[in-house]
């Protein structure tokens, strides 16, 4: 699978992005069948190869080339080829522009100003290829007084307003560990890329799309923003409470840190729920009869429910309640999910068989987007650093062996990170849990 044999679309994408947002956009286009060329350099490989948070390397082994084993790298760059190219050198820049001539889309998520600094802003790309489409998955857009400000997912959750409505009501506690902002922006950007391609097909014109991740995320709490527009009210956090439904919360179950969520949405559901709890007295209680009453007394109802849920196993309780059509969900752990019969039946997991020594079989997460006729599937495992230099520079750009060797000598291309990057790779990894209960 090292060559792009199964490439199905006549579409070439250059992926300049680092970390996740831009990478996600390019990956989805690769999943569709486009030829995606991820551009890194030996001086600045994608941090996901090296400093993967939590130092997660495949099978918890560093292997001979740890920079090709970072687990986030293996997941985020499926269906991509990889070349190295030092864009900060003039020669590197010239080679890049030759590639732009032969490509359809460029994806980047640099800080605003970096493309200019590298001498490859949109107008320069356009000179090389008037039909090029540039996707800038930026933090703040490319205009305005804060355009050069940087962010990551955590920061965006703060500055977009999302964090101000996601928390307990009585303390500032929540850590938004999930990284929704990156994959959200990347997914939206991939949709915009397809829309821009459609426009190009009709008009012959390329375009430059600049997404502001911060504003996109604010848009995802747009309905709460409307509360301010309408009532000059600043919405605050509501923990697990719902504006209309009650009970609606997360309840403790048997076992340490074990929880179930339950949402009761109608009087009928309340009655059924009381039957399941074997508490017909509650079903008959006048102050709990309608939604408004339950909302008013939700604290005391929550305590009653918690006393009941504590006696039960979260997964058994989910099955029991769902059998009665009550919206209930156990809070699953990663290990639960890896063994989950539903995800297995759905074919969610992407099972990769990688013939490289020391790699073998491993699992990546699926995508959650299922196209019936042209499925998004893994044709190519994530590439080694510079793995496709020969194909891209030799075959695609028609450079001679001598020219390619010249680039290597000048440090413009290569397959091994520079010594200062290698220094950042850990020497040993934290141990494996001997009670490992999930499949690897």
């Amino acid at each position, binding site marked *: 699978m090292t060559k792009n044999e199964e490439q199905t679309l006549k579409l070439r994408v250059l992926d300049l992005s680092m970390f996740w947002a831009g990478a996600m956009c390019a990956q989805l286009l690769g999943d*569709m069948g486009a030829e995606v060329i991820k551009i890194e350099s030996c001086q600045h490989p994608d941090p996901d190869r090296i400093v993967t948070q*939590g130092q997660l390397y495949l099978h918890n082994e560093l292997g001979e080339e740890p920079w090709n084993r970072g*687990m986030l790298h293996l997941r985020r760059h499926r269906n991509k080829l990889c070349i190295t190219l030092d864009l900060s050198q003039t020669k590197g820049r010239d080679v890049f522009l030759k590639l732009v001539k032969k490509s359809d889309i460029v994806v980047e998520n640099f800080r605003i100003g970096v493309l200019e600094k590298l001498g490859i802003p949109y107008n320069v790309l356009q000179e090389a290829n008037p039909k090029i489409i540039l996707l800038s998955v930026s933090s703040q857009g*490319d205009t305005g*007084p804060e355009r050069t400000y940087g962010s*990551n997912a*955590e920061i965006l959750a703060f500055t977009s*307003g*999302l964090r101000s409505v996601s928390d*307990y009501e009585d303390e*500032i*506690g929540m*850590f938004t*560990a999930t*990284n929704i902002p990156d994959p*959200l922006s990347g*997914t*939206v950007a*991939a*949709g915009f890329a397809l*829309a821009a*391609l*459609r*426009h190009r*097909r009709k*008009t012959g014109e390329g*375009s430059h*799309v600049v997404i*502001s991740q911060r*504003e996109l995320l*604010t*848009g*995802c709490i*747009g*309905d*709460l*923003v409307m509360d301010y527009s309408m009532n000059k009210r600043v*919405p605050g*956090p509501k923990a697990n409470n719902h*504006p209309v439904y009650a009970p609606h919360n*997360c*309840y*403790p179950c048997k076992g340490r840190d074990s929880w179930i969520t*339950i949402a009761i949405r109608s009087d009928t559901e309340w009655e059924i729920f009381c039957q399941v709890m074997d508490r017909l007295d509650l079903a008959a209680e006048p102050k709990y009869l309608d939604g408004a009453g339950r909302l008013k007394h939700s604290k005391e109802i929550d305590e009653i429910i918690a006393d009941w849920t504590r006696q039960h196993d979260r997964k058994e309780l989910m099955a029991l309640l769902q059998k009665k059509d009550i919206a209930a*969900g156990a*809070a699953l*752990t*990663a290990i*639960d999910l*890896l063994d989950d019969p*539903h995800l297995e039946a*759905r074919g*969610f997991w992407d099972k990769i068989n990688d013939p490289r020594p020391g790699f073998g079989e491993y*699992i990546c997460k699926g995508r*959650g*987007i*299922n*196209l*019936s*006729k042209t499925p998004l599937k893994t044709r190519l495992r994530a590439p080694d650093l510079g793995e496709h230099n020969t194909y891209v520079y030799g075959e695609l750009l028609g450079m001679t062996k001598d020219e390619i060797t010249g680039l290597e000598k000048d440090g413009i291309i290569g397959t091994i990170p520079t010594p200062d990057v290698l220094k950042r790779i850990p020497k040993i990894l934290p141990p494996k849990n001997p009670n490992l209960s999930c499949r690897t």
Partner: protein
Amino acid sequence: MTFLNDITVLELSEHISASACTKMMVALGADVIKIEPPNKGERSRYMGPFPNDEPHPEKSGLFLYLNMGKKGITLDITQKEGRDIFLKLVKQADIIVEDLGHGVLDQLDLGYGALSRVHPSLVFTMITPFGENGPYAHYQAEDIVVEAVSGMMLQQGSPDREPIKMGGHIIYYRAGASAFFGSLAALYHAENMGEGQKVEVSIQETLLHDDFITIEAALARGEDIRRRLAPMLLPCSDGWFYIRAFPHEWPRLTKALGMPELENDERFIDMKKRSENAEELNAIIMSKLCDMKKSEIYDLMQKNRVTTGFLADVEDLFLSEQYKAHHYFLEIEHPVAGKLAYPGAFATMGDIKWVHGRAPLLGEHNDEIICGWLGYGQEDMMQLKQKGIV
């Protein structure tokens, strides 16, 4: 000229995500026709916020925002004549997006199988909490339930308290983004090959996909990662701020604080040391910054290229100079709800304009679509109205 200016999209939405998906298609110029049940309209009309907290189906902030720029018709697709009209509309559409719930359209024999027979190149996009097959497919869900079952919820909140959900309806917007991409990927194929298909988005899988590292940590080391301690949010004169100094940003942070001597201070020499001595470091940062405003700290740090955020509430967004410079909030007039500020464009596309508009009143475009597009006469309409079909 817009990116999608000759595309017609039908939307059937009860659970936000289909509306969030087609909202982006409107922005790119598509004609989106929202189909609601007669008389009552869709569920989000009854969800707030409302002006003065007085519920009104034409004044729901959620509905007004999600449906900006769409056309709206009412149609009872459970009755034969309504169904016929629906099928005629389907023939004229490129994409249909629905989130009515598991099996709802199939029960009416209006699922992908039936619709693809009348329109083979149709893109049919469905969003459900758990997907269309598998043991949980029929499970009842609200966002709190899907967040739990996707593994997301155990990562949110304080370690010593109950896990909590994300605020608002963000997971539905997130699933809508997947449906947006999936629909356009299928449209790309349909326009090139003349072949339509079904696009199925599972919200559970979307959220699990978005998980950061917990699955990888379980696979590599059998680690069971749960919610961790809150990040270093520090108080200042008017709120909270947060500094996430990456290793290469440490020297810049010391400079921004006006304390370059800290750079090589043994107590804070690397990430490990800074984390061990976090309390001491926080005290130093606080001593320098606690009298400043959150926006001043944000500007100071960002101008020194230190990745920093502040806990912005919705009012802060209205005050943001950046949002003002982008004209992010737009005033839009609505015949019933009046003039209100809405969140607007989050992207620029060179000369191509972002399409804005207001939400439709219930059944506002019945005549335009059913008579104008499909050729029904005024008398037909009268009868349809009497039978409660429109």
